[in-house]
């Protein structure tokens, strides 16, 4: 939100909230008020407590939510802030997964080295794809990034020494050791934790780091350049923003984050399946990323994380409760051939997924985060209306 000018504070009958940003410095604050700090404390508490409270299957769902959240945060930088469309992010994700596995097993590197190297591969791929965004815009760019999916699928299928061909490659040998902590087999102060618990801690720590990184990019000069390019690229260039640098950097950083997510995915999943990143499934994965930022909130940092939780968590919830109440009415019981319900779980999930995309774009294009922002803006700017 842009900084508001001062005269508002002098209107008789009321004064805006003290946390309302009225100048540039206030707009740049990391914590806009005491509640923001409290919120962070609450999130940290949740982070520590959750693995002890939830069952392993639920922790695994949350772990995958976290992995997708990292990719969604990266995509939000590209699509939400810089306004460039990508339907090919599954390729970046897959690149990161294969690269991380390769560096971890062939070079025998530590996770602190192979994850950044995987991200670097995504960065390089982004550098290669970025220039297309200079020449092509809107619809044309969307279709070219769709082409990236198919080119990526072809490379993944044929570069057998790295990817294991169309069957993929097991990645269970990847170790996740940071200092004294082995996240495959975590033991802290004599307490032994299970793999899903330690993986939750590892993955969501990376989510937090990436979120801070994206927040810092978004609120400072590079972020303003991205938004200027999004809002009108010709004007942005006229005021001195280099289109080439900004667009290519957006693709590179976004690709690096997707690849980082892919690297974590390889560690967590212990098998990298080529088919997941190309063709039909790759398109579904790419679109899932886009849906996450649309539903969570385009152009907000929290949006990517909220979206990942809603989109992936929602699908898993539907799967889990498919035999109860209203859902069983729609969803067929796979063990009961007599069940007259219409849809399989997968079909029902995809239909809900499609309807959610349509509904959000028609009713609330800025996603769930906008609902919160609107409530917040109401109280911050009271008694003024916009």
């Amino acid at each position, binding site marked *: 939100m842009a900084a508001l000018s001062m005269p508002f504070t002098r209107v008789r009958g009321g004064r805006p909230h003290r946390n309302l940003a009225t100048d540039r410095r206030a707009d740049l604050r990391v914590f806009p008020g005491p509640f923001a700090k409290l919120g962070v404390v609450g999130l940290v508490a949740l982070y520590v407590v959750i693995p002890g409270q939830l069952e392993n299957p639920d922790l695994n769902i949350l772990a995958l939510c976290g992995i997708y959240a990292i990719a969604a945060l990266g995509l939000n930088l590209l*699509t939400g802030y810089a*306004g460039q*469309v990508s339907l090919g992010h599954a390729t970046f994700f897959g690149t990161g997964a294969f690269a991380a596995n390769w560096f971890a097993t062939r070079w025998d590197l530590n996770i602190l080295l192979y994850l950044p190297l995987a991200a670097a591969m995504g960065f390089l791929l982004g550098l290669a794809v970025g220039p*297309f965004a200079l*020449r*092509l*815009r*809107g*619809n*044309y760019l*969307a*279709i*070219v990034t*769709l*082409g990236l999916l*198919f*080119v990526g*699928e*072809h*490379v993944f*299928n*044929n570069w057998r020494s790295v990817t294991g061909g169309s069957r993929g490659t097991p990645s269970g040998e990847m170790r996740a050791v940071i200092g004294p902590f082995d996240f495959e087999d975590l033991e802290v102060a004599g307490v032994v934790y299970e793999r899903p618990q330690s993986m939750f801690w590892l993955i969501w720590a990376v989510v937090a780091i990436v979120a801070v990184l994206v927040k810092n990019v978004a609120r400072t000069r590079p972020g303003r350049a991205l938004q200027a390019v999004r809002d*009108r690229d*010709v*004007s942005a260039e*006229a005021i001195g923003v280099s289109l080439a640098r900004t667009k290519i950097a957006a693709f590179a950083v976004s690709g690096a984050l997707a690849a980082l997510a892919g690297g974590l995915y390889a560690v967590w999943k212990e098998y990298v399946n080529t088919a997941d990143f190309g063709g*039909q499934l790759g*398109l579904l994965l790419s*679109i899932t990323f*886009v*849906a996450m930022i*649309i539903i969570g909130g385009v152009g907000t940092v929290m949006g990517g994380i909220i979206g990942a939780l809603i989109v992936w968590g929602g699908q898993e919830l539907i799967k889990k409760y498919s035999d109860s109440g209203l859902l069983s009415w729609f969803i067929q019981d796979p063990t009961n051939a007599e069940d007259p319900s*219409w*849809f*399989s779980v*997968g*079909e*029902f999930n*995809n*239909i809900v*997924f*499609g*309807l*959610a*995309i*349509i509904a959000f*774009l*028609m009713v609330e*294009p800025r996603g769930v985060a906008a609902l919160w922002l609107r409530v917040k803006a109401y109280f911050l700017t009271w008694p003024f209306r916009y």
Partner: protein
Amino acid sequence: VSFALVLAEITGTRVLQTLFAGVALGAKYALVALGFVIIFKATGVINFAQASFVTLGAYLTYTAFNTWGWNFYVAIGVAMVGCALVGVAVEAAVLGRMVGQPPFTLIMVTIGILYVLDNVITAIWGPEQLDMRAPFAGTTTEVGGVVLAHRELWSIGITVVVLIAFFLFFRYSSLGLAMRATALDQEAAMAQGINPRVVFRTSWAIAGTVAALAGVMLASGPAALNPSIGLIALAAFPAMILGGLDSPLGAVVGGLIIGLVQQFTALLQPEYAPWLGTSFERVSPYLVMIVILLVRPYGLFGTKEVRRV
């Protein structure tokens, strides 16, 4: 020596056969791409749900022909009408309310529709392979050593007929004139009393009709009907982009280029460039598209967009 041998193997009838296969495949791409173009030209939407219309058309024909036992050509007509109605319904329910939104939003909405329609289709007809049993499914004619499958000849013929019908419709009918006027300048067209809503819905109906034809052609082979035949639409994107998003002629030319490139890559690449990997022909359309777009960012026949600050 081996080079000459390879050359000898790849001359004459094999080249002609590949040429025919390329044109036939290109005709199918062109039919799908025409559906994209007609909607884009009128409304500025790239309709990813075109893939679902293609699938739906094939399944409706299947049901009318095999389940209800109607005449095959009547069944195709039923499918065309059905897809046109679904197209109009989609426009009325969703896209008509989203006029003027940025391309990204419109693309994502149509992708949402794609997922809804595709999964409803799978829920109704099931994921199995079905056999359309079209009257021209297995028959062939041989001309000078080249085997011409009748269903491929039908694809080519239908594409030609549709293209001529397009030309006549846009050139001589008043609705066609209204559509051309709206594509050129929507406000000016409205000032002349043209109702843009009618124009939008007509373009969706036409796209549905053409998609149904494409679906029947794609599914007419033996046991060729399954829920993923609509995926050809993904391969038709390069054809549409190549020709330019808003040019019907471009769609057909682009379709033929992509079809020929794909078939000749399948013929030549394993012999001459095996290091490019297996099934390289599947990515060749995208590579051709990327190269052409870098040279001509608005395709071969597309209208250049003028941007102002």
